[in-house]
């Protein structure tokens, strides 16, 4: 029993996409441009050469936010989307009817269709691979060259993530929607 979350020291991110590849290899995610559980967003740079705004091209690594108040879970007609015992938002592919409602409901574009099961897939915090084996880091955290990511139990006050969130300012994406994401961006 835990409440897993991830803190992202996003200013470290160099958009190398090691996390994306690690995720695909660890979790057997299919290839294809729209089949990804994790991504890094870049805004198109502002300005004209040579006067470009460096600040305008920040890299924002992201994935399923494991919302505490998850629209995807709320809208699912069959409870295929559920909170597991660690408060990780999961999809039970046996129950998913592929109504695609959750894909529309997710404000973060975190969900996609897995072509093998023809059900919806998304980041699982590596619950059925690494966590199931008792490992304590996710594939994306472990491999990251600049150590952007810290995964851990938000309920454990001594976990690294809890310490980070206590000691550093942070924000969430689309916080105004009230989804209460468990991905935290460190300032």
């Amino acid at each position, binding site marked *: 029993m835990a409440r897993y979350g991830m803190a992202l020291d996003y200013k470290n991110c160099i958009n190398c996409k090691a996390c994306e590849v690690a995720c695909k290899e660890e979790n*057997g995610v299919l290839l294809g441009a729209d089949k990804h559980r994790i991504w890094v967003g870049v805004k198109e740079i502002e300005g004209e050469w040579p006067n470009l705004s460096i600040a305008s091209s920040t890299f924002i690594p992201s994935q399923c936010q494991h919302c505490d108040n998850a629209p995807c879970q709320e809208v699912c007609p069959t409870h295929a989307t559920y909170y597991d015992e660690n408060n990780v938002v999961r999809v039970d592919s046996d129950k998913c009817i592929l109504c695609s409602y959750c894909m529309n409901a997710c404000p973060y574009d975190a969900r996609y269709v897995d072509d093998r099961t023809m059900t919806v897939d998304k980041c699982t915090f590596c619950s059925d691979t690494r966590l199931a084996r008792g490992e304590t880091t996710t594939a994306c955290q472990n491999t990251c060259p600049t150590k952007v990511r810290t995964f851990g139990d938000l309920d454990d006050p001594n976990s690294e993530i809890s310490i980070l969130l206590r000691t550093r300012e942070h924000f969430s994406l689309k916080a105004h929607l009230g989804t209460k994401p468990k991905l935290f961006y460190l300032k």
Partner: protein
Amino acid sequence: MEVEISRRRFLQGSVAMTVVGGTALSTSNLLSSEHGGGEYKAASGMPESVTTKTGTGEAENVPFLCGICVNKCAGFARVENGVVTKLNPNPYFPKSRNMLCARGNAGIQTLYDPDRLKYPLIRIGERGDGKYKRVSWEEAYDAILNGTDKFKGLKQILDEEKDNRATIGYCNGEGLSKEGFEVLMGEKIGTPNYVDEVSICLETTLGGYFSTIGTYGEADLNNADYLIIAGANRAEAIITPDTMDLFKRSRGRGLKTIVLDPRFTNTAAKADRWYAINPGTDLAFVLALTYVAINENLYDKDFVTKHGVGFEDYKKHILSNKYTPEWAEKITNIPAKEIYKTAREFMAARSPIYYQGRRSVFSKNDFQLRRAMAIFQALSGNLDKKGGIVYGKKLSLPKEEINTPMYAQVKSRFDGKDIAIPSDKTGSWIQFRNMVLDGTAPYPVRAMFMRKHNPMSGVPNAKKTEEFLKKMDLNVMIDILPSDTTMFCDVILPEASYLERTSPVATYGGLEPAIVQRKAAIKPLFETKEPEVIYKELAEKLSKPLWEITKKYDEDVQDDIKGMSKDEEEKYYKENGFDLADAWEKPVYEANKEMVEATFGEEAWKILDEKGVYYPNMEKYHKQLNPNEFQYYPESKKNYTTQGDKLKVIINFKNLAKKGVDSMPTWHDEWNFSVPEGKFRLVTGRHAQFTQSGTTNNLMLRDLIPTNYLWINKRVADEKGIRFGDMVEVSSSVGKVQIKAYPTEKIAPNQVFMLHGFGGSSEAMEIAYGNGANDALIIEDKIEPVYGAAVMHETNVEIRKV
């Protein structure tokens, strides 16, 4: 319902649309029956799908060293039922600090690339048409020795050349088994004509730094507080540990970062300031920084007095030449006031670093640029100290004794012609190739032995490389994939990839030195073999026949063995190193064990064997600090300062003058940047999801970055009616290519950029073939005068929408 998304399906799907010229079909009979054969897959230990979800059951974790690029990051390969399902970072290696980059993670796809070379092949068609016959290893070795009706064998060639071993050329790309190939070809077979990546990569940097401060050094980015990084793109061209350290403290977090690059890179995106410098003008920038430091007395006088050689001359030189920021502004495109500011900040910083860079074959003045950079670094006094450029230490491994034979007939190498300080070892690729091609070489070069190197992509002016290869009587390639160059070879030997082989122990020095061992995660797939096994077997095959040729032409040998009995002659043959195979007596793993146990003890071997890494006191020193960070050496044990009084900075290098090279960095006006009206300067470089030409067939990486594009300034593109994705033709004096356009403000109006390594011409590489453009087809083959290293960014091109 299980749907297997095959490579082909993948090609037809999301990416096929972006493939230039339609879907690549493998017409080559290299591939013949391999695609889609279920039985075949099962037999060869290939995974069932492109990516494999890791299981929760039994698994083996084998320490390996990544072989996708030069860094050799350490990892553990997760092996389930004989299939590598995941590559995880290894937390014990101080150089790679528990990381694998995107390419490192995607290494599985290289291992299981269906297009891999699977068995030895010999050419049955014409060079370049891709017609090969599958043969046994023995047949392949035999073809190298004796030739076939299509090509000559080494025996005939050497006989005709009267045992002039220099008639064989060889080349090898970077890697852990490179030395063995050099032993085989250079020391045992005995040719001096070796070229490798050095003269197309970093020769001028190494040369410039070594000749100035005696080392290339390591930038202690964890403790620096000011960084100028010019012509190095660490966010995309990954070098460990620099890439990991640099970006944790950039952007207002302790490491002020100034980036100089003609284009806005991901490194620039992390900078405090980015200067869009004109290509090839960095030297003027550094000279101007130096001018400010000297003119305003900002430099570290004590340090310079103590360690500098010829500083006063330099001072005069800089001041009298008036290398002012105002002067440099016109050349570099960087405002004078910015240069003043940067120089002053640099000299005022506690621990400033002017980053050395790596690939440096940009312009003709590069050697002098690196010298100027090293000197400027020294002026700050921040050398051989924490937070500066450090010398570090290396755990030394015993040098293997090679019983090197002497051949009297062998002629010396010739590619040093017109070059100031030719490298005897690695030569000059361009000079070597061009002299062979245009007939100015003093003797014929008739065979090329190649390994892990793809000059059709890496050496400028690929047309000439093709002609060069076609001119040979015999081309042999050891590779893992049917690369562009491989397709011009007569005998192709398939090597086991880095995940299938144990490599000789390597040592990595620096602040936190360690030794590492790559261990085979799985047995070699198909009929591939470890390089050392290939060297040995080939040596065994060639040894006696070549010895016969030596006996026929080598007067020294003839004198020596005159009147010897058969046994005595055999003894002479063995004792004098003519037994070519004697360098590989033990398999690599056993040799590693023996050597490590003898040097560091049995315990060390146990640790190395299990963890892939070893350094003294590792069990004591190595600690996990938090989920992301490890301690390798305690602070007090890091090798920040190792030189003391012996540190010398050669500022005025008088010996250079004797070779016709400026003894102090000097700007020559012919280096001023200019591009004729209507043309563009072509720049090339790296991307974080590709390694040169080596990964273009990697499905995972190709998924991330389907092809290369031509960066062209957006406003210029608008004027020319070029939009994103439009096909344009890029032509230079040596060739032309077609490539998609990427209009962006990240590049100057008179410059264009493309990623290096794309545009494969080998049809046997399904994913890489015809994908994007090969920059080597349009880059002119110019060399710089000091080492004859390639100059890659002095080509102007025209752009036309097609």
